[in-house]
């Protein structure tokens, strides 16, 4: 036991460079937010990310939402952009772990907390502001039923400074279960109903003001560069844009064709060498600016399965409909299920409008189940939005590993040559520590996958 204790202490010191050692616990019912220390034992047992989220989910009863980061989130490890939201999915009726990428993970970590537990429900629409290791609750009634771009604009204009935001749109305000939480106005891979759970708690948004920092390990910058150089040099490093991911999926090639003639710019998440997102420009008519006036717009495509499902249903009209889904905070995959085959644009727009009832649950709530079941039930376990990139036999394990360590799951799926050890060396290069971690990780993965 003494040896085990010493080992745990060593691990604690090891992980302290990777965490702020702070958990924000918010009770919306009582309008209170407290910071509790993240215990060394918790990190030693669960390492971080989804496994620690799961532990906190069970620790704090009352159906909480848990947001957390992994040890490598924000670090020099490539694609260290992950924030994991763990909650009970009303759609899948089980505990789910939804990944948020872009810069949400690092911004949460650099805002001074590692995990955020949201309990209870607020009496009025609220938002959480995380800054310098504190969590504050603010009213957000003025944001109700606004389109998501207007929400982010209003927050940037009128609110305190922040770097990243997880917001819900009008779909969540209307009580639609298939509403998705969005990272700013850019969408997300949430297909498990996080937005509807947030709406049930009267929580409109979570803002992270990530202006702090962590030391991580000082010898890591070059290690990260070496790993990126290594994978860049390999022949299969051809991941350039949203379309390149689509081509890896069944039926994705046809969906990718709708992007051909558009002006595109590939984008990447925090410290990621793979560009799996694409910003597309489009021109649309804007009646508010006067009759016949044309507005130049654009949106970021990051939901591969959503795009595929919608493209399959509506063909060339996919872009404007996808845009509407993003603006209203709706899952495009669920919308696709709602639309009729061979309909017209007007019919589809009418069908989307019908999804917004004046009160109560949306009509599609009961019938909808995500279609991307290829890698088995684990697909829904991780939110249902992560592209089922083959090989499917390791899909679950790779995603679970990424969810624990705080690395983008798409990145790990795209580069199967990156081993578990490659990533763990960012935590420590000492062989004994590595061995301990390598022994610990498989059981944690199994725990996650068992849900």
């Amino acid at each position, binding site marked *: 036991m003494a040896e085990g204790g010493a080992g745990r202490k060593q691990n604690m010191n090891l992980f302290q460079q990777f965490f702020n050692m702070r958990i924000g616990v918010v009770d919306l019912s009582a309008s209170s937010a407290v910071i509790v220390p993240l215990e060394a034992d918790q990190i030693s047992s669960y390492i971080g990310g989804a496994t620690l989220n799961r532990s906190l989910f069970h620790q704090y009863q009352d159906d909480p939402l848990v947001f957390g980061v992994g040890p490598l989130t924000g670090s020099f490890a490539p694609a260290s952009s992950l924030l994991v939201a763990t909650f009970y999915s009303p759609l899948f009726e089980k505990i789910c772990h939804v990944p948020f990428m872009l810069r949400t993970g690092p911004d949460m970590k650099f805002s001074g907390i590692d995990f955020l537990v949201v309990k209870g429900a607020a009496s009025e629409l609220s938002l959480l502001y995380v800054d310098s290791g504190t969590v504050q609750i603010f009213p957000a009634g003025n944001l109700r039923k606004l389109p998501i771009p207007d929400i982010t604009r209003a927050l940037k204009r009128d609110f305190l400074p922040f770097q990243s935001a997880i917001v819900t749109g009008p779909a969540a305000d209307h009580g639609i279960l298939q509403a998705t939480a969005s990272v700013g106005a850019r969408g997300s891979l949430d297909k498990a109903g996080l937005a509807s759970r947030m709406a049930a708690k009267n929580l409109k948004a979570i803002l992270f003001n990530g202006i702090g*920092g962590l030391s*991580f390990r000082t010898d890591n910058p070059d290690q990260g*560069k070496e790993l990126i150089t290594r994978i860049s040099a390999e022949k299969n490093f051809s991941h350039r844009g949203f379309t390149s991911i689509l081509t890896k999926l069944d039926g994705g090639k046809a969906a990718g064709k709708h992007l051909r003639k558009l002006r595109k*710019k590939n984008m990447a998440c925090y410290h990621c060498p793979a560009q799996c997102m694409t910003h597309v420009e489009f021109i649309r008519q804007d009646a508010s600016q006067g009759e016949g006036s044309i507005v*130049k717009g654009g949106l970021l495509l990051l939901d591969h399965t959503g795009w595929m499902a919608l493209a399959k249903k509506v063909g060339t009209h996919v872009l404007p409909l996808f845009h509407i889904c993003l603006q209203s905070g709706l899952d495009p995959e669920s919308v696709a299920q709602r639309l009729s085959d061979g309909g017209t644009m007007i019919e589809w727009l009418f069908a989307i409008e019908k999804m917004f009832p004046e009160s109560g649950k949306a009509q599609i709530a009961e019938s909808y189940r995500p279609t991307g079941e290829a890698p088995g039930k684990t697909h829904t376990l991780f939110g249902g939005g992560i592209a089922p990139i083959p090989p499917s036999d390791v899909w679950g394990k790779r995603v679970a590993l990424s969810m624990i360590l705080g690395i983008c799951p798409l990145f790990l799926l795209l580069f199967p040559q990156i081993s578990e050890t490659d990533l763990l060396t960012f935590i420590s290069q000492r062989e004994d520590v590595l061995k301990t971690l390598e022994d610990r990780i498989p059981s944690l993965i199994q725990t996650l996958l068992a849900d």
Partner: protein
Amino acid sequence: MSEHVTMQEPSAEQDFSLNLDDLRPRPVEKRTFSGYFMPPRHSFVLFDPDKCTGCGTCEMICSTRNTEKVAPASASVKVVTDEKLGKNFTILCQHCRKPLCLPACPTRAIEKGNDGIVRINKLFCTECGLCTMACPAAAPLKDPGNQEIHKCDLCEGDPLCVRHCPEKALTFTRGKAFRWIKGLRWTIQLVSFLLLVIVFIGTFCYFKTGSVSFACPTGTLQNIASSGTIVLVSASSALALLILTILAGRLFCGWICPFGFVLDLVDKITPKKLGWPSFLKSRMTKYGVLAGAIGGSYALGFQAFCTICPIGTLCRSYGVQSFFKSAELAIVPALASLEIAQRRSWCRYFCPVGALLGITATLRLIKIVIGAKRCKKFSCIQCAEVCPVGIIEADQLREGISPKIPMTECIMCMRCIDRCPYDAAKIRFRWQKAVPGENRT
């Protein structure tokens, strides 16, 4: 050791208080003789927005140098993404040739080293943020946490952001190694001057050998106006210069004109310009001079302007044989002295030969384009500064707009192309719409 140093006792009235000038002497711009001809080339970080994916690796790596931890908000570089247009920009100190932050700093904490790097001396910095306000790029970044000012110092010659950028969107460069156009132009100008002024005296106005003849087009027009007859041989002789202008713009003005060469030399010895009053700064004046020259010739019955034409007098009067023989000698220095007011003043506002070539240049086949998206904009604008006729709009460049260059005014000296370190200035056919940096998606 034989030297004796006498120490004076300080008097009671003597003031020993230090002021800012004692601590931080005012920066003095040092200009060497060679600097006039070949300004020093310092390295800088060049950003390619087409390659940037907005991953923020530059921020995280930069912050480790500033704060010894990963704290992107404390970096000296900031990636800004326009979510609507999907464009990424970096806010990064460009180590301007004439930094605006430097005079803005009240404590003179900012200095530009001999290596071209603009640094903030933390000892003197009071974190007032005036440098951020003065910088057009807002490149000195205020740390939102501890309010410190962070500014890129190029990692003392090996920028980490450049080393770690996974997309190679940042490059560390010194720009072009050799400005060959400059050397070629000076050589051709010198050879033209020697040939037209010293060797073949007077041949610019009219020259004939065998069946080949050449004539000044403005002189020919005056000849036609004064004599009332069109001599086909003379008129066709004048076409050579006009055809050259159609093919290559006003290349004559920038590369061949001997008076232009004199003006360029005078410009080198009078770098400080007094400027023209605004009511005289009309480029249309030269067209009026052209019309006046033709009208005057018609009225007087002889080629009126040719008697005072600086190009003609230079070619006629300054040769070995005719030196000190003519009263025309005063014309060239008199008109060259206009250079004190503005570069190529004569060419900009008065030259009727340039006016005629300018009219012809409306039919030109080529043009010069400058792609503002490819350059450093406000922190460089070297193209606007070196343009001898001042037709490149620096304000447009500062706003990131590619300036439209009026080719009727452009003398095709190609200084902008030569000087631009980013290859943003190019020669294109007039029907080509592509602008450097704007044709890639």
